[in-house]
């Protein structure tokens, strides 16, 4: 039997439409792989075999009857577990929501259902998307499918590992400071954070509302574009969603020319602090783009230096408020302390037991940053930095069509390596955070492995707000150059998951 799990989403769409493979066959193949490897990888927190197969069967039946179906009908997908679903638990990786089944589907989930895409399951994440390694999940870390003792990045390590490990052709992620792009970089996959507001956040369990953005996780730039075209669009339920839909990205991937494109290398995000192999692959990519006709310029973004600091005030401030609703009154965990259970004591005991250490750290930090007397010095200053970063972007985009940097300073580090050092963990997102603070779109795609450790390296392109198409254009162009050089896809250069898992067992 043909193994369809290795095919790209773009190919699978064609195969499904042609009737070469049925959705049930395809879905079952992914479920079988999940069954075989998820025990070790822990990419999925919940597998929805039954409902996925039911959707698949419906697609096959309707296709057989000659009905015109949505383009992606029958193509399975994984969903990050901070998006609400009515037919599977939504935990956000927290004990607070263990077993919680939402009363409504997130807008993005509804779009997947409207497009008749079987949802394979819900993927692991750092608790409430707070983290860069997926180690903050209350339900155990996800492992990197390139090296099982390494982190897959975070917070969306589950979605990245699911796609990278061929446990799903596509996945939905959310990116607040790099949670799509950083894991993509760690796992040799592609991830896009669209322009803020391009995809509805309705049903996304909020981390930091002004930074959160849902986006595609895929194995190729075209696959990511395919998914963005399905999930993007205005939603009256999300006031911050854009009126104009950025949902014509696949077309942008077809123009693989970078001739004359001005690419700005961000001075502050190269060189010192970046792993040698990461820098090396990055430099090679820049050379390749130059050789393909791109015009390489250097851009200065001095305020980026303060991005991480500003981010770790704005994010905790918003999160401290967004997470206040987890109080045991209406849903989720309830812990009743001994003695007289007043409402305050029940709320406190529940939050004490339900939240993990990183979540508590950020709630305390955010509560402090918003406190009377400290607001101006912390939250206020951070907002000013945010404005400065937006200005840096605006200035840089006067001389460059897209900006570029490595997605992350290093390749995947070992599980446990940075758990006890929050600052070191926060610095992983140094290159991805500015895009969230400015609301501009970014894409990460793999550019080979670092020679010193053989682990994937990612490159990040950034474009002005609303210009997501540029990312797909330049991303697809570079991807094609690299794949021609390698003679295969990035993931095909990686280890076989079955072999890695058998070594663990």
């Amino acid at each position, binding site marked *: 039997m043909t193994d369809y799990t290795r095919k790209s989403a773009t190919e699978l769409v064609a195969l499904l439409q042609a009737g070469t493979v049925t959705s049930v066959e395809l879905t079952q193949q992914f479920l079988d792989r999940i069954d075989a490897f998820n025990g070790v990888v822990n990419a999925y927190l919940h597998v929805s075999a039954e409902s996925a197969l039911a959707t698949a069967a419906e697609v096959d039946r309707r296709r057989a009857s000659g009905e015109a179906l949505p383009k992606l009908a029958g193509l399975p997908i994984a969903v990050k577990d901070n998006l609400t679903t009515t037919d599977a638990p*939504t935990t956000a990786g927290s004990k607070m929501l263990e077993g919680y089944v*939402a*009363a409504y589907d997130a807008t993005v989930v509804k779009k997947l259902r409207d497009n008749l895409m079987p949802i394979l399951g819900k993927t692991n994440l750092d608790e409430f998307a707070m983290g860069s390694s997926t180690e903050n999940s209350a339900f155990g870390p996800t492992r990197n499918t390139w090296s099982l003792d390494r982190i897959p990045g975070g917070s969306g390590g589950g979605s990245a590992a699911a796609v990278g490990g061929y446990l799903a052709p596509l996945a939905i992620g959310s990116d607040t400071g790099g949670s799509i792009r950083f894991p993509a970089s760690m796992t040799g996959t592609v991830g896009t954070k669209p322009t803020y507001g391009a995809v509805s956040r309705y049903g996304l369990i909020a981390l930091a509302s002004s930074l959160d953005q849902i986006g595609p996780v895929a194995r190729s730039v075209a696959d990511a574009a395919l998914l963005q075209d399905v999930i993007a669009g205005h939603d009256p339920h999300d006031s911050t969603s854009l009126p104009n839909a950025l949902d014509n990205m696949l077309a942008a991937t077809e123009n693989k020319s970078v001739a004359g494109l001005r690419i700005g290398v961000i001075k502050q995000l190269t060189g010192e602090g970046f792993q040698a192999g990461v820098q090396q692959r990055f430099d090679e990519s820049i050379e390749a783009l130059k050789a393909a006709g791109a015009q390489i310029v250097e851009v200065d973004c001095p305020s980026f230096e303060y991005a991480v600091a500003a981010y770790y005030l704005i994010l905790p401030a918003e999160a401290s408020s967004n997470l206040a*609703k987890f*109080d045991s009154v209406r849903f989720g965990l309830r812990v009743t302390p001994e003695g007289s259970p007043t409402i305050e004591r029940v709320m406190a005991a529940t939050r004490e037991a339900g939240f993990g250490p990183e979540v508590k750290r950020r709630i305390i930090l955010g509560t402090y940053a918003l406190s009377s007397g400290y607001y101006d010095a912390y939250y206020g200053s951070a907002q000013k930095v945010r404005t400065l970063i937006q200005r840096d972007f605006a200035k840089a985009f006067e001389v460059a069509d897209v900006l570029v940097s490595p997605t992350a300073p290093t390749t995947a580090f070992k599980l446990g390596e940075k758990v006890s050092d929050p600052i070191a963990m926060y610095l992983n997102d140094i290159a991805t955070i500015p895009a969230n603070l400015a609301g501009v779109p970014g894409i990460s795609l793999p550019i080979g492995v670092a020679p010193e450790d053989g682990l994937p390296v990612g490159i990040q392109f950034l474009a002005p707000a609303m210009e997501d198409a540029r990312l797909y254009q330049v991303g697809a162009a570079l991807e094609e150059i690299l794949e021609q050089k390698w003679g295969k896809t990035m993931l095909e250069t990686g280890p076989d998951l079955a072999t890695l898992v058998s070594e663990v067992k």
Partner: protein
Amino acid sequence: MAKAELMDYAKALEQFEVVIGLEVHVELNTNTKMFCGCANSFGDVPNTNVCPICIGLPGSLPAVNRKAVESSISIGLALGCSIAPTGRFARKNYFYPDLAKNFQTSQYDEPIAFEGSIDIEVPSGNVFTVQIERAHMEEDAGKLTHVGGSTGRIQGAEYSLVDYNRAGVPLVEIVTKPVYGAGAEAPELAAAYVRSIREIVKAMNVSDARMERGNVRCDANVSLRPHGQEKLGTRTETKNVNSLRSIERAVRYEIQRQAAILAKGGTITQETRHWHEDKGATSSGRPKSDADDYRYFPEPDLVPVQPSIELIESLRSQLPEKPSDRRKRLQAEWAFGDLEFRDVVNAGLMDQLEETVAAGAKPQAARKWWTGEIARVANAEDKDITELAITSADVADLAALVESGKINDRLAREVLTYVLAGEGSPSAIVANRGLEVVSDDGALIAAIEAALAKHGDVLAAIREGRMQAAGAVIGSVMQAMKGSADAGRVRELIIEMANK
């Protein structure tokens, strides 16, 4: 504080200057809630008008109700405020079980309306200008019912029930600047101010404005300072004052209470206080300091509200006339004397009179019924006049029946009691109960002749021009016919008979 310990009111005013400040919450009567599509409806089965948004389920997001924004702008304009070209919502963060998200989405430093003023007339006829600091939009919280325990408060309760039907209902909070110079009339001014706000929001139909349902709620700030002192005294904020009468009483009580404390050299605690209608007193609530930390920050889930100039001007053009203009107009139209008119205003019966006159009644007749018999019944039953089962159309009907001579005053009062008992319109009651006055001349003539037999010289007296002599005969006829005779017709008939 016991009644005896309060300072005499006049004495308190001799010693201290009263400064008040009023915060009025107006619940808007939009069809749906502030940030979701749930029905904004009073009195439904608890927790039936709820959705993921208003009970704050994970992942849900608010979306602003356009109508609520328009209503808020209208209120601002009616209070002479400027309208902000752009205004962000903010989150007011605090944990309380009636607050689904544990933050209230409100406006903080960018209210939709600011810097207005309104002229308020108090019963004496004095007019005070109340400066409006701001009017901002926010959402209401759910309603808690504390079960068990004696006080109905959360302390001591066995458990509490939450009804989120009210959670997310749109509110406009109108905040005055400190009001100086009202002196002894500060309590009346507070009540008259709230009455004006009610009149305005009702006239614009942006709120049902029923205080007994909490559509209009008032928090009254009161502070005292010795005459001549510049620094404001410590204020208290009395909550739970939900009738005009209570507002007046609560402010008066606070003046007397604070004066008694200050006069003894004591200090006023800055706190919220609760008004108890039954005891006629306030009691200490929770301490409130300016350091209450709600960690306000701009609501990131909502884009700023940016009303266009066109929208603002369109809403301005639809504003009803100012209450003071309306009063002047109505007094002139009705040709009421100052005292007559003030009675109507103070009884809060302007709307009723206007409707009754519009339904065809003469202004004096409308005034007589509303401020007379109907007000008497409301007072006797301790009800708000609007709660009585009588409409302006009923009163106009009643007045028309009297005017046409179909019934007389005595019968009209009888009919009124049947209307209040829910028997239907006055016309229907008169027809059903056969209450019409007897205008059958034959029956009247027979009764007059019987009466004349007892008062033989009456016709002669009338012929001589002594018309008052008819009075005794009319009296007898009315008595004989148990009041169901048309006295005017009886008089006419007697004169006819005399002149035959």
